[in-house]
């Protein structure tokens, strides 16, 4: 525990420096010296949420998938990072995406975000500029919306929404939906124009403590339109149904 804390601290400082560099006009620098005297150290916070770390069982090849996000910063300005990906149980990583964003509070419930996304897999590796927003919509929907501009000037976007339903204080069911669109065909990445795919998921987790929850669930992805046709041409099934089991945890 102690070790984790120590390394977290180090990470905080590193990432904090980065975030300050990113946001030149940071509010932190503008604080009055006497105010600092009172607060001693305005807290620089850091957190990491591994939202999904799961085994997926499906008709074809089983895989291990992850989705995580975290941030370092203060109330207004944050350095935000996230990653998602998939690796077949037997075989090399097929998808691995990383995002590094500057995130700024614009209202109680919303942050605007901008930065870079880099996909290590699938190949060819692709770098994107990212702009988007993230927050909590009325009725407690967790929303992330992002637009991407690739190094090859391809434009795409992704919209995710999640919702937590408390069955009891510890048993939580989480439906989620995600939709991806592309403004043009990207042959190397097997993407068509228009809606690429939708994903629906349902995960039932048990929060042993708030920070740690094993879960089971089901996820269904369906490629659509041109993207589905491309998949079929490659002998792939455009639809993917998987049962999942994993853990969700955060620091």
């Amino acid at each position: 525990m102690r070790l984790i804390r120590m390394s977290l601290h180090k990470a905080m400082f590193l990432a904090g420096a980065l975030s300050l560099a990113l946001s030149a006009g940071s509010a932190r620098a503008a604080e009055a010296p006497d105010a600092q005297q009172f607060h001693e150290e305005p807290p620089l916070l850091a957190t990491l949420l591994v939202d999904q770390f799961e085994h997926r069982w499906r008709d074809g090849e089983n895989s291990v998938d992850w989705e995580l996000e975290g941030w370092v910063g203060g109330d207004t300005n944050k350095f935000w990072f996230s990653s998602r990906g998939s690796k077949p149980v037997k075989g090399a990583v097929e998808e691995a995406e990383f995002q590094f964003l500057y995130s700024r509070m614009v209202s109680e419930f919303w942050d605007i975000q901008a930065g870079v996304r880099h996909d290590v897999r699938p190949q060819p590796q692709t770098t994107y500029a990212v702009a988007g927003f993230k927050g909590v919509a009325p009725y407690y929907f967790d929303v992330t919306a992002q637009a991407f501009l690739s190094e090859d000037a391809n434009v795409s976007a992704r919209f995710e929404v999640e919702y937590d339903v408390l069955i009891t204080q510890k048993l939580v069911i989480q439906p989620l939906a995600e939709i991806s669109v592309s403004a043009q065909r990207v042959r190397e990445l097997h993407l068509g124009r228009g809606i690429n795919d939708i994903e629906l998921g349902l995960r039932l987790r048990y929060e042993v403590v708030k920070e740690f929850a094993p879960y089971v669930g089901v996820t269904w992805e369906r490629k659509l339109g041109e993207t589905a046709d491309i998949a079929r041409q490659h002998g792939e099934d455009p639809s993917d149904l998987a049962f999942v089991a994993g853990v969700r945890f955060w620091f």
Partner: protein
Amino acid sequence: MHPTSRGFSRRDALKLAGAAGVAGLVTAYPGRISFAATDQTLDLAIERTRITIDGHTSRGIAIGGSIPAPTLRWREGQEVVIHVTNRLNEPTSIHWHGLLLQGVMDGAPGFNGFAPIHPGETYTYHFKLRQAGTYWYHSHSAGQEQEGMYGAIVIEPAERDPVRADQDYVMLLSDHTTESPDAVLRKLKVSEGYYNNNKRTLVDFFRDAQRDGLGATVTDRLDWAEMRMDATDLADVTGYQFLVNGKGPRDNWTALYKPGERVRLRIINGSAMTIFDVRIPGLAMTVVAADGQNVAPVKVDEFRMGVGETYDVVVIPQGDKPFTVFAEPIDRTGFARATLAVRDGLEGAIPERRPRAVLTMADMGMAHGGMAHGGMDHGAMAGMDHGAMAGMNHGAMPGMDHSSMAGMDHGSMPGMNNPGGMGSKDQATGWADAGTPPGAKALSYADLKSLTKAKDLREPAHEIEVRLTGMMSRYIWTLNGRKFDEGDPIRVAYGDRVRIRFVNETMMAHPMHLHGMFMELENGQKDRLPRKHVVLVPPGKTMSVQLTADEPGEWPFHCHLLYHMASGMMTRFIVERRTASL
């Protein structure tokens, strides 16, 4: 005064004394005051310690060797000198909560020229006691107050005390957690609702739907969800042990009496975050002072107590049966308990625990139409109130039966609902519902009447509006929408009479504390407004106070919930001397 501290040896004390110059030695005080006139001198060391509560030991910080810190018993008119030595490895401070004194002696770092006391340093406080009554002292640095840096101050009046008592006890209520304050604040900031283990669930929904009908329940849930707010958010932090004089419920701190004696209990809420409902089943309490200031006696069965407030009550226990002093936090996650008994070792019964309240739209200020909120019509509001009332049934309180439900619905906490004391005396709902049984009297702010007439009866020359604001989901708390380091200070000319109007736009109660001066609560008592250093402003409500700005300086003005203050709910209240005309 003999706060002999463990880990603070006599030799250390001597060294210290030599260095600082104690009573008798006429040493130049930094500034000009000599110690010749000193009536009371004491040394207090601040150091890490361990505290054992109900058999569990955890970390804490002690002032003068103990948690709580030693009770300081002084007399009005005395000059006191306190040498405070910091034996921590972080800066610290001591603030004398409720005392009228020169700004720099107030002990709030960053205000009035007071700098934090750095590790290894000794700071000498020196002030004359200009008042009598029950007060307290605590750290004003970081989260140290939460860790045990609090103690009581009892100042005997220079003249005859209007309150007669045979026994006189301090009961200092507090909340203790094994988590570090930094960890608590971090969790509050990174994970909304982290400490709330009584959120509304699907199970609750079906139960409510069965009782109140599906439509009403759905409407209720949708209205809260639309605003992204939580009707069960009564307290931000849980996991607390609730203490009386540093003792847990099983430790059972005991005060002794002889039957028929008048026992004065000086009850201080020295919690970091906890608002308490206090009662002594079977024993009526006569409130004789609030925030150290005498009030016309008022007989009550129970009272609600904001963080930082103090109430002195007189009780006259008869017979040799023990009485339980019972203090429940408003989110009902535990209780503090002490016993009044004729001898040690006796235990009174633990009373039935009260249900927790569920917030209503009125707690959001909706009922006053003060907060414009799209899509809220009257129909929806009615549905909401209904749903929320119903919600109380299942407030996570096993053993609740229908008879006590009835009591809750008709519970009378007049004035709490309407703290200005003006207007209708509605039955308590939502936040204000303490579960007071029918026929029982709960203290209301409207009942508090100063024992002495106000000295300054001028109409306030101007009004200062202080909106209590925040972003719950991010745990940012503000005044007038601004964090401490972003907002403008409040400026008042020396000698002016001003009104401060608190408008609580949040769904939490905020105990608002002004350093340096008393606020006179406008509760309808005309020329006898009670003098308060903390005013508990209920959610969604408006309250106002008057004051005469007769203490020049730059005073902290903040919510006394520790993590609200740490998150920005604070400003400077500057009393400016009129500059000489040039």
